[in-house]
């Protein structure tokens, strides 16, 4: 699979200077964008189109800190990934129990009309879960430096990778449930398109 870090001449590290990345993205775009290759023959145009698409995908995967971790895992595991709607995430084990309550509330809401108290209940749950999701993201970012140091030291990074995966799974699940709560509240949170900026 394509190494997006390599596209930008970066090591596989999670700490990235966003402003420098953007500047590099603009530079690479000036080199590869089809606008500047109109006079080339068909084959060369197809090649520039592919390179330009690669630069754009690489920037999209790296500019966002969470997307960056997701991409890193896929890259390290050597599996092809694609963004967007994956199969519906399952509840991670450590979240199962506390989610039971939310799921029950959701089912009730779906079954009948929402009275004011039920609404407030769902809204409170959603707020709490948003906090949980934020905490997962903070935790992920908190250990990014650890990963970067391990890359420099050349140590075994697999345990950390596994930990990242678990936290990402928890976050994905939380996001789905937050979306479900918004649906039940009749608010379109438009959450099924991922990779929005944070």
């Amino acid at each position: 699979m394509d190494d997006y870090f390599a596209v930008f001449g970066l090591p596989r590290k999670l700490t990235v200077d966003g402003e420098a990345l953007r500047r590099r993205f603009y530079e690479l775009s000036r080199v590869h964008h089809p606008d500047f290759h109109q006079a080339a023959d068909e084959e060369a145009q197809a090649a520039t189109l592919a390179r330009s698409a690669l630069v754009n995908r690489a920037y999209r995967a790296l500019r966002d800190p969470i997307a960056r971790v997701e991409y890193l895992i896929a890259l390290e595991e050597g599996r092809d990934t694609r963004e967007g709607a994956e199969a519906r995430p399952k509840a991670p084990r450590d979240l199962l129990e506390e989610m039971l309550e939310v799921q029950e509330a959701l089912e009730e809401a779906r079954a009948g009309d929402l009275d004011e108290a039920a609404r407030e209940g769902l809204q409170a749950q959603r707020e709490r879960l948003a906090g949980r999701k934020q905490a997962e993201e903070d935790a992920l970012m908190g250990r990014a430096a650890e990963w970067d140091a391990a890359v420099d030291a050349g140590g075994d990074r697999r345990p950390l990778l596994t930990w990242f995966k678990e936290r990402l799974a928890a976050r994905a699940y939380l996001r789905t449930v937050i979306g479900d709560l918004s649906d039940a509240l009749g608010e379109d949170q438009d959450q099924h398109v991922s990779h929005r900026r944070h």
Partner: protein
Amino acid sequence: MSRIVGIDLGTTNSLVAYVDEHGVPRVIPDAEGRGLLPSIVAYTRAGVLVGEAARRQLARQPGRTIYSVKRLMGRGYEDVRGELSQLPFPVVPAAEIVRIRIDDREITPPEVSAQILRALKQTAEAALGEKIEQAVVTVPAYFNDSQRQATKDAGRIAGLDVLRIVNEPTAASLAYGLQRRAEGLIAVYDLGGGTFDISILRVKDGVFEVLATNGNTHLGGDDFDQALVSWLLEDIRTAHGADLAGDPEARQELRLAAEAAKCRLSFEERTHLAIPFADFVYRRDLTRADVEARIAPFVEATLGPCRQALKDAGLSREQVDEVVLVGGSTRVPLVRRRVEELFGKTPHSQLNPDEVVALGAAVQAHILAGGITDMLLLDVTPLSLGIETLGGIVSILIARNTTIPTMAKEQFTTSVDGQTVVDLHVLQGERELARDNRSLARFELRGIEPMSAGMPKIEVTFLIDANGILQVHAKELRTGKEASIEVRPTYGLTEAEVERMVDESFEHAEADVAARLLIEARTEADNVINHVERALTQGSQLAEPGELERIRDAVATLRRARGGDDRELIHERTTAVNKATERLAEAMMDAALKGALASKRADRILESS
């Protein structure tokens, strides 16, 4: 490289522009000095008319005069079913894409648009004195793949190689960028005749990076006019007891009057309507508040997409440095007010909102030609692209607001032993279920070698190019062979159909401008003859002695001239008929006005009794 022009193919008006030898983008005027070409095509019995000449046929030949065809581009019959009653021209039922019936022909929207593009091409060729074969054409940012492809097809049919499809709001930002070189976060609010877009851009170091876009390809000034027409029809029913809803000619008169009144009320607080119909003259005062009450729901409908675009860009409204207004409908004061409230800052439109998109298209054309090397536009795809999976669920391959060009790869295999064909259904949209999204095309991967189920590995590449148009390639990974793909566009023309239309358009193309002018003259003559004949049956009792004979003579002379090829002579004779009928026409108008006043007085007498 030969010259590339920039074209704004608008719902209401279209323009062509180029960048002159000093690097300044300019709109190219036609022979009469007009920069705006009304996007109207009349398929008269004498031939095809485009622009101002076609506009004059709107109320005369409503069934043959096509306006706002952009709203039909890349759309299916089912899409437009709801508004068929408002369209004066007949749309053929049950076809996949919209087809308009004129006599025994069925005409598709790309063919109609091609007529407009061809007229612009001729204008540019006449003004620049060279052959024009390449163009950049703008489309609404929120246009989907089918609508973009239909626009490209229109170019081909018109004999233009469309080198790039550019989004209208981003084209506008290029025009502003060239002029002012300002940097920062910019929101472009583009409300035209038929479509609405909002795009949010970061402009820095000469790069115009679109962060998010949103919109509605079926929302614009046309809807304002339509709402006014419905309201006026009701008012006419009350005031005159006449139901004009089923009369296409009257509806068009009313639409034109409503549109003109709407435009006046952008600069004045009140205006007066006086529309002569066959049996009465409809008069009423109209205030800006009257219009605003009717159009407010449409203006409101633009605000949701603005909020979504901000959210997708990850920005709050305070972070936006500048709000730019594009499109004729942003002249409406209510629109300006609501945009200002939403963004919390005063929007501006320093460049002419009618011209700025065409100027931007010319700038992009100049970039492609190598004339500008320090500006680069990075646009996004407005809608998520996905494929249908088991259970009718959409699996997203490329999320909306992804910078283009972009690419996604997906592996497919077979589910039955010996299977040699795999079907793919590609869709665009944001909904979870396939049936709620826009079907783009069905792809058939063929020639897979028979193997047991699950053995073949076919890698399909979905590439969205810089035009926002999808390209699909497939490869069998075990053999490395390119798999052949058959594409069936859901709402589009097949390659063979486009080819045929290109050929036909060469056959039917008017040889030159002279032929077009002759058609215009003949059509004008037909109109005058029809008009006079109708007038003679209604108003002959008002004629003076000898007057009817003089008129009949003039008409007969005109008829003879119309049969010939001499355009000047037809013009002359048409003018002569107009002159001969001048007095009688005035007398008839007076009588109609007196009649209208009399009936008003009668109303009052009835009321007071």
